[in-house]
């Protein structure tokens, strides 16, 4: 059977299994189906190193008993109907051993609006020669910036995605999407001293990748890190560029707005609806309808229609994010944030993987921080003493929002001017305090996997020195 036939067969078998589960006494049941076809090229040491073609089809079931005990089982052994039904029944038998989730809910059938720009036929038609060509251009343009720069690693991947959700409440939805991803990380070697790795890339739905721009950007980033100097510890203003914002700061926001954390009172923003949680010019949305957005979608991973949700408006907390169950628990609206691709550092989640292997949890689609009007140069020009931080390592501590991050790509700023690259050192503080200390927002929003964020300038950040 080919890819297409497999899909049709799988979807039919899933529907049959749901009917069977209802007969066996399941109160609610759901099947999630995912098929991906990926062409990928990897870069290693300024060479196109490997090419792969990966096909993956699988499905998972969630089944709930009459007293709302829920089980989950998945398989990618999809060639026969018996195996699929067996997986559904496994979910149901596991459910009987689980604890009741009184508010367990699946979405009901609703009209699904189409999100624009998520599918490009050209991506599905592209072959390995296209991926190799893009990878070569990435390498060439990176190295062209300076002979001391090399493209250490990177990837071009072209993905066709087909997904569907069927549940016992009448949801039966399906969508096709494409993804075109290109990134490269580079490092420079100057006078025997390597620079930290610099990363740039594009996450698109169409084949409009611009490898030359990515290569030039990343190459220049590395050149700018030559001749670094250690810094002393001080307190000052820090401009966090989009990449830095997209990791630690976004993770802190996600932890605070995530439905499960709100239900468990593990979010520091519980009980603060309407209160100030960020500076007055900070507005953040979850936007699953963003045209061409990398995390945009027609429906979430439970089949609920996509929407735009204002989480923080002008510094004030306006909404948390929910899936069907967390919304039901708190008797509020489902924001369509069920995700089977949620990020996070939880070990079991990383072992199990994503997609059909994962249970849905609440996660942003595109976490959009509304850009401001200032260019990077303007953000820097108003700093007496501080840093310009392009990237940093380390994680935000869940709940507390504590960040102590090692500076990666970073520059020292004095009297409104970038003075030199920084060697070593850290920034430390509490992400939730930093959100309130934002003094300006850049106009340079950039798309990451689950966010579209600009630079943020934060006042009074503690810099841990490296000398």
């Amino acid at each position, binding site marked *: 059977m080919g890819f297409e036939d*497999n899909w049709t067969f799988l979807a039919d078998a899933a529907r049959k299994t749901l009917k069977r589960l209802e007969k066996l006494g399941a109160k609610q049941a759901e099947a999630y189906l995912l098929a991906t076809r990926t062409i990928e090229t990897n870069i290693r*040491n300024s060479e*196109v190193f*490997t*090419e*792969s*073609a*990966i*096909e*993956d*089809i699988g499905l998972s079931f969630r089944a709930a008993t009459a007293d709302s005990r829920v*089980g*989950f*089982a*998945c*398989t*990618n*052994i999809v060639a026969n109907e018996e195996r699929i039904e067996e*997986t559904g029944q*496994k979910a149901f038998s*596991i*459910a009987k*051993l*689980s604890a*009741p989730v009184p508010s367990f809910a699946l979405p009901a059938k609703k009209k699904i609006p189409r999100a624009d720009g998520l599918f490009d036929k050209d991506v599905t038609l592209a*072959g*390995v*020669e296209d991926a190799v*060509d893009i990878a070569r251009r990435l390498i060439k343009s990176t190295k062209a910036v300076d002979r001391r720069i*090399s493209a*250490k690693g990177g990837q071009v991947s072209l993905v066709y995605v087909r997904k569907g959700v069927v549940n016992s409440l009448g949801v039966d939805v399906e969508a096709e999407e494409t993804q075109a991803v290109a990134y490269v990380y580079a*490092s420079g070697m100057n006078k025997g001293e*390597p620079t*930290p*790795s610099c990363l740039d890339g594009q996450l698109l739905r169409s084949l409009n990748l611009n490898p030359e721009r990515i290569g030039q950007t990343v190459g220049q980033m590395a050149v700018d890190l030559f001749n670094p100097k250690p810094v002393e*510890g001080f307190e000052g203003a820090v401009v966090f560029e989009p990449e830095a914002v997209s990791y630690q700061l976004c993770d802190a926001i996600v932890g605070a707005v995530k439905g499960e954390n709100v239900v468990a009172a*593990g979010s*520091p923003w519980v009980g603060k609806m309407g209160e100030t949680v960020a500076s007055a010019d900070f507005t953040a949305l979850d936007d699953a309808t963003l045209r061409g957005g990398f995390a945009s979608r027609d429906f979430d991973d439970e089949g609920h229609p996509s929407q735009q949700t204002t989480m923080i408006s002008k510094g004030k907390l306006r909404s948390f994010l929910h899936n069907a169950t967390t919304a039901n628990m708190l008797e509020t609206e489902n924001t369509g944030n069920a995700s089977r691709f949620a990020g996070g*550092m939880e*070990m*079991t989640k990383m*072992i*199990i993987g994503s997609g059909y*292997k994962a*249970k849905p949890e609440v996660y942003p689609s595109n976490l959009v921080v509304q850009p401001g009007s200032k260019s990077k140069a303007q953000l820097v020009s108003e700093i007496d003493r501080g840093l310009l931080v392009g990237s*940093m*390592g*380390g*994680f935000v*501590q869940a709940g507390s929002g504590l960040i*102590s*991050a*090692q500076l*990666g790509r970073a520059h020292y700023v004095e009297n409104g001017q970038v003075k030199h690259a920084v060697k*070593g050192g*850290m920034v*430390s*503080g509490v992400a939730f305090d930093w959100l309130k200390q934002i003094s300006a927002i850049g106009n340079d929003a950039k798309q990451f996997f689950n966010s579209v964020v600009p630079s943020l300038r934060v006042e009074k950040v503690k810099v*841990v020195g*490296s000398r």
Partner: protein
Amino acid sequence: MFEVLEKGLEARYASEADFVQVRGQTRTITLCTVLNGTVEAFSHITLSGVSARVVTESKSWGFSSTNNTEKNSIEDAVGNAVKLAKTSAKSKSKKIALEPVKAESVEISAPCKKPVEKANLEEIKLIPMEAYRGASEAGAKIANAKASFLSIHDQKWFASSEGSRISQESTRVQLFVDIVAKEGATYCPAGESLGHTGGLELFDENPPIGLGRKAADKAIKLLSAKAPPSGSFRVILHPTICATLLHEAIGHPLEADLAMEGGGFGNYVGKPVMSKLVTIYDDGAVKNGLGFLPYDDEGVKSNHTILVAKGVLESFMHDRTSAASMKAPPTGNAHAWDYGVEPLIRQTNIGIEPGSFTVEEMTEDVQEGLFIEGTFGGQADANADFTFGFQNAYWIRKGKLAEMTRGANLSGNAISVFKTIDAVSREAVLRPGACGKGQFAIQGRVVPAVRCEIIVGGTGGA
């Protein structure tokens, strides 16, 4: 599965490749998570698939995988891989060589006394439930207690056009406990983990209830602890955090693919790179280690590879390609997380040879410093610059352990840090580990405590 794989080796396109490696796998994962006393997640995952990896024209790799295991799917996968490799070969100038290895025909099962599949679901549920019970004894300040049992049963088959036929079976069992203690607006997280290659006998010697108690007690103590200081300190790293430092910041730069990118340990083979007290190895045959992988996914036997001997860089960890290009013997470090992805150079069970000190002796010599425990994970780059979180620390004052502090991050350059090691403890502990280098991996670490200088990024004072 070998019958299916043979068809791949005999596929029409196979003859167009320099050689062909085919792999098949079935995997069963059971996860049971107990959150605050109730089973929050119970999942059963069954996966299977095949993949083909080829080299054509001595220049180009091609890889293709599918979870379709019908008869002709492996033939299609080989065909796809050959097509990919040939297409991209046109644009490649550099030759690829593979270090030759002996063809092997072996069947290996990792020792497992109490197989997970023989336990019923009720028995499995009891494991995280007991861990929770241990945690709950700490009282009302425990705001969140999560215990997860996870088992992975793998059956893997490898066949190559060079004649190897290798089948390997293993069960890996892990238990994670994550606690958040809360008092007023203060939240303190703490965690503990256990894991081995083997069956449920893991819990005979390490009862889950004890793991729950340990994590909860720590979280409660942290509520009244102060923040750690910031700056450079003389520290003793407990094996739990030493494992992270070793894996992330020393282990990764010792992986040949990352080493070849320049920086880090670059071209220092044969030269001193760290303290003479340090000998580092990687060993895929460590009994019960989570990285128990006797053969890698290129069919190479895993060695006890000495990476650093008394401070001198001896070898990197290799796959066959990097071994050939660096003219080194292959070390059996090419591992793929599952059938669906290509092998990468990965650690198996990385270890530091134990030294001669007791931890007490190591503490006695410290006038002012920190004893650092527990990991919250971390990251490092090929230059060995690292950041990672620790869970808690104790001040050391005048040679004695003093009050506890909360966790924060450590950072620095691991090569510089390992130059400052002036004591290694006499007991090395087998720890569970994991890694996300492009794809996931579960690994072991065999680590003693070490004493060194490190930068602590805390927010408190001395």
